[in-house]
């Protein structure tokens, strides 16, 4: 694709920001930020929660307006006042929080993202085309509601690629992908960069940035602290630049002694509630006191069904299939399982783990009411509840406008810290946690990992479902892989073979890819 315009433009940066500042009430989100993105470059944007990355990106994408400073697109000074204008210029963005219509199909969602009208069948072909070309396999007919997080992200990426962008902004794109998929995405991104597209890549996975990006801009407290070549820095140096101080990564010592099993699942069969969900077939597992069991796997392989079965949101046919602290719990609902000592962190924070329109106090009450004794004869004890919310916020350094702030006003990372803190302070005997650090930056992720490890040391049995294999390798004692609703053998993490895990995770993806070539796909088993 040739760029229209004079050759001289190739020398000027695709996008240059100069002295961008943005003030929010009580917080200078961007302070004199300079950023220059060359054509065909993959540029990393690094920073902690609240460092100002999101604000900067929103300014580039026309969602927010800068208070001062200038934007130059291909050398010409412009002002971007709306996302549609940004898209018109050739700026596309894959958001961390997806903006998809749940009740519509993949193809319809892609169509809605386009500014021009396109026939749906033509579009469906094109979606398949782009999917094959860039390894983003999708069935255009499927309804988004039934897609996993990983699959939804593919829809977002394809939607952007449909517009043939000149600048593609990616916010934490690999957090839901397997190593193999991430590698495939990098191939895609490099391919795009070779075609002349600039990529602004926001991530906290430093190893990935060092493998992929040509340059990195590190932000802290709204300012640019460094622009460097990430390949010449160590991951530790980058993290230090980002956080501003030294930090240590928690990991499992590997010598811990485990107690008796606290959570046992025996031959669990469970049908998925969603139409395209994956059924769980004959799944058995044990988690012992003090142990962290990691469940790896690509999204859409039965994680949601398994999590619903464990939380009690979906009951098992046979009470004996799930045992909590030695008691048959398969027929107990979430409230009674919590009383037995179960705590649960779901995959989706807003809208499942928390009520967006309610305050942190109310959201603390949401799951803490029994184990924190927040009720008295049917009435809410507000003083105790506020105190509990306050303790969560303080113990987990949740950045929020007070405990009266709505859950929706928190950033993803801070809300995740709040939800994890809410469950941890209930001193659970068993903790089931889904994607504990998805979309959370390095500092917050380290804090969450440390908290999980401490909890295990105190004798809690922890089951972590995650797509982030690095995370599971770092914190879990044993790892099993969930593929098409079946669980592999549990392997000791110390002795684990990463390629083998990758293959187990990928088995289902390969199956899908071949099945997808014939237009209609047979229902998953």
């Amino acid at each position, binding site marked *: 694709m040739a760029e229209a315009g004079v050759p001289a433009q190739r020398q000027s940066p695709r996008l240059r920001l100069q002295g961008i500042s943005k003030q929010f009430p009580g917080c200078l989100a961007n302070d004199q930020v300079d950023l220059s993105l060359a054509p065909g470059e993959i540029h990393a944007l690094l920073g902690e929660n609240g460092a100002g990355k999101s604000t900067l990106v929103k300014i580039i994408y026309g969602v927010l307006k800068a208070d001062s400073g200038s934007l130059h697109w291909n050398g010409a000074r412009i002002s971007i006042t709306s*996302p549609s204008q940004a898209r018109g210029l050739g700026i596309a963005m894959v958001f961390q929080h997806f903006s998809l219509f749940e009740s519509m199909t993949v193809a319809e969602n892609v169509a809605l993202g386009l500014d021009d009208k396109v026939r749906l069948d033509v579009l469906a072909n094109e979606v398949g085309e782009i999917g094959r070309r860039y390894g983003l396999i999708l069935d255009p007919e499927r309804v988004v509601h039934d897609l996993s997080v990983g699959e939804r992200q593919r829809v977002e990426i394809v939607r952007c690629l449909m517009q043939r962008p000149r600048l593609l902004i990616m916010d934490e794109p690999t957090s839901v992908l397997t190593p193999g998929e991430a590698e495939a995405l990098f191939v895609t991104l490099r391919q795009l960069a070779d075609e002349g597209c600039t990529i602004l890549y926001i991530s906290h996975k430093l190893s990935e940035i060092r493998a992929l990006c040509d340059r990195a801009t590190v932000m802290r407290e709204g300012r640019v602290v460094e622009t460097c070549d990430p390949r010449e820095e160590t991951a530790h140096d980058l993290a230090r630049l980002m956080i501003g101080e030294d930090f240590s990564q928690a990991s499992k010592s590997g010598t811990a002694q485990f107690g008796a099993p606290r959570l046992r699942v025996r031959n669990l069969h469970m049908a998925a509630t969603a139409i395209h969900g994956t059924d769980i077939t004959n799944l058995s597992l044990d988690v012992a006191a003090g142990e962290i069991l990691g469940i790896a796997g690509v999204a859409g392989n039965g994680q949601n069904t398994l999590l619903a079965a464990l939380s009690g949101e979906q009951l098992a046919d046979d009470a004996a299939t799930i045992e909590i602290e030695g008691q048959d719990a398969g027929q107990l609902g979430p409230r009674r399982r919590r009383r037995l000592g179960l705590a649960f962190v779901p995959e989706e924070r807003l809208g*499942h783990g928390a009520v967006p329109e309610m305050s942190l106090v109310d959201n603390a009450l949401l799951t803490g009411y029994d184990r924190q004794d927040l009720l008295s004869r049917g009435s809410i004890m507000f003083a105790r509840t506020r105190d509990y919310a306050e303790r969560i916020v303080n113990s987990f350094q949740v950045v929020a406008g007070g405990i009266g702030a709505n859950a929706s006003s928190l950033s993803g990372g801070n809300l995740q810290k709040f939800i994890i803190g809410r469950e941890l302070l209930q001193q659970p005997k068993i903790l089931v946690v889904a994607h504990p650090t998805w979309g959370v930056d390095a500092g917050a992720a380290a804090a969450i990992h440390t908290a999980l490890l401490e909890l295990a040391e105190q004798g809690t049995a922890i089951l972590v479902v995650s797509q982030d294999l690095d995370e599971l390798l770092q914190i879990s004692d044993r790892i099993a892989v969930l593929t098409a609703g079946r669980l592999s053998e549990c392997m000791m993490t110390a002795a684990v073979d990463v390629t083998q895990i990758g293959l187990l995770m990928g088995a289902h993806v390969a199956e899908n890819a071949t099945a997808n070539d014939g237009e209609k796909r047979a229902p998953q088993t």
Partner: protein
Amino acid sequence: MRPRLEARLGVSRTMVYATPVMALLLTMAFGSILFAALGQHPPAVLYAFFVQPISSAYGLAELTVKATPLVLCAIGLSFGFRANIWNIGAEGQLTLGAIAGGGVALWAGENAGPWVLPAMMLAGLLGGAAWAAIPAYLKTRFNANEILTSLMLTYVALLLLSYLVHGPWKDPQGYSFPQSRMFADSALLPLLTMGTRLHLGAPVALFVALAAWWVMARMFIGFQIKVVGLTPAAAGLAGFSVRRLTWITLLTGGALAGLAGLFEVAGPIGQLLPSISPGYGFTAIIVAFLGRLHPVGILLAGLLIALSYLGGETVQIELGLPLAVAGVFQGMLLFFLLATDVLVRYRIRWGRKVITQEAG
């Protein structure tokens, strides 16, 4: 260039409470245009509609009498509406409450003791709740839409009342009029002030509103209702049973509507008639929303809508305007309320469609 709605970034809290007032002002403005078109002098009509009915102690008492069933029904509905349970059949539940409570009064006859009034209230509550139990069962068992079932059951209830007063419960000395015997004095609600129709129902409605506020603001069950309405998935996670809350909200709504019906027949009416309510159960839906589903708001909205009933009667008597004016006013009020609500949440933009996305 077509107009389209674009979501505002934030919803102003002040505006949420200001919209009912704006809706009222708009209703008055457009009502004036309507009156002018009918050849009337708008200020005179507005005076007759809004001021004249409540310029006497008797008028104020009448206002309270009319507001009582509206507030009771609307409070009951608001629990369900908060939990996304759309009970549209309060009118039917009100009717069943009147039948059950009135049945007790007729059964007790002249020799009723002081126990009869409490027994009637209990019967009214149970009658309304029983009628609401049908949609609750159909919803929880078969996932039948409660909007349809509760609405259709309203007509069944009205026909049942009609059958009773035309048949088995018809007053033998009533010259064949379709009406029951008059209730005994002990089966009538005590009047609060002489010379008016103000009865015990008004303080009960006030108490119910305060209790509802306590339940929603301080009780765990109120919290559960709010969570289910806002985010069903979070309610599932927390172990709140949607099934249980469906039953509770529908039964409560039905019981309060039934009590309102009993108050009508044991208060202003004093017997069972084929028609015991000018649509209080339906109008209560407007009252609930006008009051922002908040008990205090519902009290104020109940008084305002009650005024529209009285105002309609006054302009009919004084100016010869049709009684339908009251219905037009209520309809306009709801219309403007919904319209201003939309504009609080969205702004109108002219131009091409744009998908706005929210950054993380």
